[in-house]
């Protein structure tokens, strides 16, 4: 059943798939690789934090774990530099999930604001560990097997793997939204105690969601490590990463399917572009800050929700004009009127 909505998705994937064929400038394909990485991460982050309302600011734990998994395994397994290393991308995701279980088990014992603080604390534990442990290479990081694919075509395989992660994360997020489990996450967001009183096993649901969302972020971290070829603890365990994917999702629309995709597409692409053109790597922070203020002030639910509301409101206005009478009668909702007498 290829409905109109699905057709848009197919079209979007087609456009993204065509991108490196149409745009061959390595500068722009590099930006595209980073953009897919962030689109995948923001979508995955939203799948837990957006649906459950538990704003996690420690996803860099998963990103870094994935990156170090890629680096350490490719080095210790003496892998040949090349496309074989892509097999380690999902492995990075799985390792991130392994870390997510105890992380979630601890952090999800507390609610809301305290949870945010705990995630930040856990994040710093990981960053400091990466800096101080010997096997991670400390502050000098790790150099991965050097891939020699040539300047012109280097980015393309990375781009398609990144795009696959985006498609995977989006499909998973959509599936979760449609499942009983997803409904339970939304119930937890709206009223966790009440959900508990309706039989929802809240701890199990939260930890599962948290762990599930770690996969794509870890895989993206592994892809990042392979792409840049050299990782440092302060770049793969980067607090800006946590803030970025949260901001992207807020910008697009927290808890929506397209919101994080759109937010990451706009923010990451423009950040990379600004960094490259002005060779100033912190200029984007000003842009982020300004954009964030605008969104919070004018469309606090994000761009996607704002636009959707506008569209439905316009449709409603038109309908109202046509059938004002119908609406007037439907408006007066009097529950329990006739039904009472007939109750048996």
């Amino acid at each position, binding site marked *: 059943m290829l409905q109109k909505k699905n057709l848009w998705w197919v079209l979007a994937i087609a456009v993204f798939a065509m991108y490196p064929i149409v745009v061959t400038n390595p500068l722009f394909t590099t930006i595209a690789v980073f953009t897919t990485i962030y689109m995948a991460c923001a979508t995955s982050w939203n799948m837990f934090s957006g649906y459950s309302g538990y704003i996690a600011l420690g996803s860099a734990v998963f990103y870094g774990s994935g990156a170090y998994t890629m680096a350490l395994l490719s080095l210790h397994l003496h892998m040949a530099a090349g496309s074989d290393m892509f097999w380690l991308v999902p492995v990075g995701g799985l390792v991130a999930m392994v870390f997510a279980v105890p992380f979630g088990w601890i952090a999800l014992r507390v609610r809301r604001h305290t949870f945010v603080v705990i995630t930040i604390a856990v994040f710093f534990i990981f960053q400091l560990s990466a800096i101080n442990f010997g096997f991670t290479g400390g502050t000098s990081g790790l150099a991965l097997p050097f891939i020699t694919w040539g300047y012109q075509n280097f980015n393309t395989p990375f781009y398609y793997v990144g795009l696959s992660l985006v498609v995977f994360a989006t499909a998973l997020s959509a599936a979760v939204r449609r499942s009983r489990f997803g409904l339970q996450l939304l119930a937890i967001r709206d009223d966790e105690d009440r959900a508990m009183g309706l039989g929802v096993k809240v701890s199990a649901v939260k930890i599962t969601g948290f762990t599930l969302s770690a996969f794509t972020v870890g895989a993206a971290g592994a892809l990042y490590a392979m792409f840049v070829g050299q990782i440092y603890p302060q770049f793969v365990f980067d607090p800006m990463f946590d803030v970025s994917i949260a901001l992207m999702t807020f910008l697009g629309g927290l808890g929506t399917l397209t919101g994080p995709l759109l937010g990451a597409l706009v923010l990451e692409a423009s950040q990379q572009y600004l960094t490259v053109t002005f060779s100033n790597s912190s200029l984007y922070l000003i842009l982020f800050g300004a954009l964030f203020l605008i969104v919070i002030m004018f469309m606090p639910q994000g761009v996607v929700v704002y636009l959707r509301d506008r569209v439905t409101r316009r449709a409603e206005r038109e309908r109202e004009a046509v059938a004002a009478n119908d609406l007037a009668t439907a408006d007066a909702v009097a*529950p329990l009127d006739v039904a009472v007498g007939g109750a048996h």
Partner: protein
Amino acid sequence: MDVLLSATGVTKSFGGLQALAECHLDVERGSVTGLIGPNGSGKTTLFNVITGYVKPDAGTVTFDGRDITNARPDAVFSLGVGRTFQLTRIFARISVLENMLIATQHDESWLRGLLRSKSSKVEVDNAMELLEFVGIARLAHLQAGALSYGQRKLLELAYVLVANPDVILLDEPAGGVNLTLINGIKEKIRALNKSGKTFLIVEHNMEFVMSLCDRVTVMHQGTNLVTGTPAEVRANPLVLDAYLGGDDDDDLTEAVAGA
């Protein structure tokens, strides 16, 4: 007497405040049992202990012969004890129908929840039937946050019913709703009780309690003061004292005396 739900010697303090002191309560199978008492007498705390939201310092809670003391709220619910809250609690940002679906399949494992779709046709039909029963079926696809206070009360009753619990604890079902709706809720409770559901109701509206309940337990300062039929309770001087003693509930005193 076939006791379905019972609390024995339940004691709970919050810091220096003794909320429950050796409280006893029996709910007979198939009855509508009322729980009344001045504000602060521990009614809601007792509800919270029974449904697993608060752990008692001492005492036991049994349901259908099983010890459910200290069981988690989701486990208590899965066994067949449903409840509503004093201030209605619904899931505001999902649709009314989705609210109804949360309690379905409450006993399935979380892993299955991950793999199955939000709802089957049977579940949706059942949910719609219950919404029809409480009279808000036409609001099914509205976001629940858009409902009025009275409609929220009805939704809360309906989604507790989804899981078909044996006993339903209602915390002030008539609080803050108009007379027509109060009578409507009363009728619903009667109809459900006739079909075999047991009720335990906390309510300040004396007319509501006295006309609906088979037995009434009066609580005072964290313990059960008097238990009996509505007529017995009304005639008992201790009850009046309990209400008169509490200086915060003058209207209730009059209500008890006059009802």
